[in-house]
């Protein structure tokens, strides 16, 4: 009944893509904050190697966020 009224495929796509993008981007950004903050703390404590690992993880997470945004806008403007 509902399937005859609404484009079910498009609606399901809206639901899962919104969930994946919303949760994925916020989780990745939270990881970026953890990476950056822990890197600063560990460097202050003189633990350079661990600090570098956290900094790299934070940077990768931030790059993932930026990449997700760019890809999202490109997909949107392509249609």
């Amino acid at each position, binding site marked *: 009944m*509902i399937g*005859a*009224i*609404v*484009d079910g495929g*498009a*609606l399901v*796509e*809206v*639901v899962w*893509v*919104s*969930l994946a*993008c*919303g*949760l994925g*981007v*916020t*989780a990745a*950004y*939270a*990881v*970026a*904050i*953890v990476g*950056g*903050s*822990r890197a*600063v703390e560990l460097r202050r404590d003189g633990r350079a190697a661990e600090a570098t690992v956290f900094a790299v993880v934070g940077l990768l997470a931030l790059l993932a*966020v930026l990449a997700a*945004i760019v890809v*999202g*806008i490109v*997909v*949107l*403007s392509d*249609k």
Partner: protein
Amino acid sequence: MEGDLLTVAIVVGVALIFDFTNGFHDTANVVATSVSTRAMAPRLAVGYAAILNFVGAFISLEVAATVAEDVVNPSSVGLLAVFGGLVAAIAWNLITWYFGLPSSSSHALIGGIVGAVFVAEGPDAIFFKNGVLGEVMIPALVAPTLAFVVAGLSIVVIYRIVGRLRPGSVTAGFRAGQVMSGGLLALAHGTNDAQKTMGVIALALVAHGNLPASDPTPPTWVVVSAATAIALGTYAGGWRIIKTMGSRIHKMDSAQGFAAQGAGAAVILVSSHAGFPLSTTHTISGAVIGSGAAKRLSAVRWGVAGNIVAAWVLTLPAAAGMGALTYAVTRVFGTGAAGPVIVSVLILAGGALLFAKRAQQARATATRAVEA
């Protein structure tokens, strides 16, 4: 034909005024969370949102196509019906702005058009099942619910990930993140809302014979003028609604602001891609409430949230009634430009009266505060 040209010019002008009031009315949805968490200064947030609203309007035309083709039959809609719908939407926006209610400009527009077309052309000119219900009302229910869930889950995930960090660095990090999430939300708003005006102008151009009913894609001048009008409206802002959205629903921390804006932007952008003419107001309100409820149910002021829901429920039927009434009043003056001219003057006078009254109340409040 000259009369027709004047009428189409008035309809396009009124559509751009609606677009301006849409931006003005919806500024709160876009910037309230950034302002509330002090991620950005109010004026900066508003200027930033205005620029990204402008840019967003150029990203896609899917929503414009839905409004121009799928809600009402473009080949049987006249200029006066489009005019009636637009005036109803502007009047509803002004009334809800006056009372500080963040109702949906988008649903006011669609409700107004449906009401006016119903009276002008009859029920056969409206695509109730697949258009109004399938492309507007069902997505209107899904979007805020989805934004509520995404924001709620996001804030749970965020607190889980950053749980052991010092609050200072978390706050600073998410405030910086809100510059990005707030920008995305502004972009999403421009993408979805500016396109509704483009769709309505396309309907008017079909009625006037400038565009074919089979392919009413808005020309470039329509896209540019709609983008400019919504950006200017956004910059002009709406401070009463900012207050409601930013602090009266619940007090937010920067992580909640980020989660709410991220969830709202994701839902609106994906829906724009699918061509659903969503309400940014509904969506971001759902996200704001979701980010508060996931932290602590009692943190949400459910009374204020209830008032917002009541405004949502009222918007479509109220705007439809006003659209029908506006069309009937306009039609009293015939089918030419006289009706639109007279009704435009009346709505401008009504708007000016509401602005003057609001300014007077603001001055009185300021005077009382100084005396106290």
